[in-house]
């Protein structure tokens, strides 16, 4: 009872990265509260899943396995999770802030009447005293999230309702094996509670691409913004990324203009990255963008506007035209590594 729960998202039989990241965070929170970590996996053909999940410190894995449960649809997943929550009374429950988690978690919270905080960038345990009633609360989940278009950071708590539920985007938390030999317990969920009414929404067709780029794993990122000017001109960035062994990313303005594909978008509504080196080329530095890259170890800004906001968080500011700067970086990198 009162444990920490993580909903495991499964796409085409594979566990989503965000779920492993949440298990890692969930384990830390559970240890701090001296509680167990439990996971809920719903889908089809899930035997053997525990081998992948136990090393993240999962103590109990609830599995609901049925052909009709994959691909994901809202109603049956909602019913199963609500039923497990009713029985197990979790203290905390975490969901990916993905199209699945953001579809499912609000519906669950509406059923359970618990508070839900979207898109948290940080989760901590802390105490709280109600400013009016002076009532004291111990060990609440501080759910920290940007809002108002990224212009403010709010710390949100759910003092009176359980579970305390939060969603977190992929890439925000780090994924780390807790103990390769960790062993938990598998609990099979009896799906006989489901009936035809839960399957009225049908998936007719799906075309999901396997993600080709992995920005999060890249140590060097060369990112371009609207200032790059065109899709063709992005080749300057690909050339530099290639010699440095990095990946190319883009701001939303670059993505919206079709210069670069959506899966490469960095920022609040894209991926969060923390490479060793982030080179921002023709990016102004809106908060929604910097939210996704400000923890990079070293930031270089290339911008022809010396007052571009991104310069305030850059370690190196190159004031000039990226068309001139990028080829020179390639040239002098090659010269100095020969």
């Amino acid at each position: 009872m009162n444990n920490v729960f993580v909903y495991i998202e499964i796409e085409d039989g594979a566990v989503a990265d965000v779920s492993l990241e949440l298990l890692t965070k969930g384990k830390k929170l559970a240890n701090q509260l001296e509680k167990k970590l439990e996971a809920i996996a719903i889908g089809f053909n899930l035997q053997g899943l525990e081998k992948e999940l136990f090393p993240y410190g999962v103590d109990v894995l609830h599995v609901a396995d049925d052909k009709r449960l994959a691909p994901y649809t809202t109603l049956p997943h909602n019913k199963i999770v609500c039923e497990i929550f009713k029985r197990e009374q979790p203290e905390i429950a975490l969901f990916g802030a993905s199209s699945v988690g953001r579809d499912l978690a609000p519906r669950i919270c509406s059923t359970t009447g618990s508070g839900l905080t979207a898109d948290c960038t940080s989760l901590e345990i802390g105490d709280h005293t109600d400013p009016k009633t002076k009532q004291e609360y111990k060990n609440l989940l501080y759910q920290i999230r940007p809002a108002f278009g990224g212009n403010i950071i709010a710390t949100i708590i759910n003092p009176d309702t359980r579970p305390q539920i939060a969603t977190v985007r992929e890439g925000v938390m780090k994924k780390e094996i807790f103990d390769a030999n960790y062993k938990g317990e598998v609990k099979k969920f009896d799906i006989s509670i489901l009936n035809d009414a839960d399957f009225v929404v049908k998936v007719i067709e799906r075309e999901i691409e396997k993600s080709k780029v992995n920005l999060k794993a890249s140590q060097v990122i060369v990112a371009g913004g609207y200032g790059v000017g065109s899709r063709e001109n992005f080749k300057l960035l690909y050339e530099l990324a290639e010699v440095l062994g990095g990946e190319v990313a883009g701001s939303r303005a670059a993505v919206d203009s079709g210069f670069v594909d959506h899966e490469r978008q960095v920022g609040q509504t894209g991926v969060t990255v923390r490479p060793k080196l982030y080179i921002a080329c023709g990016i102004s530095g809106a908060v929604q963008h910097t939210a996704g890259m400000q923890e990079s170890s070293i930031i270089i800004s290339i911008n022809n506007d010396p007052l571009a906001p991104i310069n305030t968080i850059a370690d190196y500011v190159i004031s000039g035209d990226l068309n001139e700067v990028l080829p020179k970086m390639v040239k002098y990198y090659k010269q100095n590594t020969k």
Partner: protein
Amino acid sequence: MGLKILVLAKQVPDTRNVGQDAMKPDGTVNRAALPAIFNPEDLNALEQALRLKDTFPGTTVHIVTMGPPRAAEIIREAMFRGADGGYLVTDRAFAGADTLATSYTLSLAVKKLAPFDLILAGRQAIDGDTAQVGPQVADKVAVPQITYAEEIQSVKDGKIRVKRRLERGIEIVESPLPCVVTVHSSAAECRFRNSKLTMKNKHAKTLSELQETESSYVNLYKTSPWLTITEWSANDLNPDFNCLGLTGSPTKVKTIENVVLTAKESVQLTPSDSDMDNLMKELIANHTIG
């Protein structure tokens, strides 16, 4: 076959145009400088509704919005673009609502308007940024939900077929009506104001707004009933008052910090050959690259 469609729409501060004057010198948001706008994805939702209205004669499209009295502006705006009218749900008792209390209030309004065929909403509002209200309303009204919709492909035999835009692809799903569909920004942009409709509806007002109107217009509202925008207070919805506003909100904001960009000590460089050469040498020497 006409459909009865409700569009949930919110008036929001324009957080996207946080320009020079929108930030105070101390780096905090100057909310007063942010104009109030029609939440962008709610316009995408409105367009999907208006397309169904174009396809199925007899379809009606009404906006339902919870907000302060001035939120009547977005109902008028929707009427200029083709909506038939709207409902403003407004009361002090709603203040401080989180998404759960918001969806409870909206679900009461929607139930009062039942039966309906379809509820459309935006995926997400740009101020709260949670994308939670659509699915929560669906749960409270006890109908299925389809989120992240890019296009309503068909409505036939009591079923709706929708293309969804997901992170890495698309999905086509079918649901029985009634249901809630939340619309993504990748869906078609909303049409502009129609000049005839703008003329016809420019005097559309809520009762509170009417009380401030000069008497010479009063007859207009007798002869043109569509110009009166319905206004509901908490009492009209017969709610459990414990579920409204701040009281009905399980989430509480503990603290709020404004994002202040703090300047780092940065090294200033020019595109000159010597600067570029030195930069690459330095990055290689400290093992950032290479």
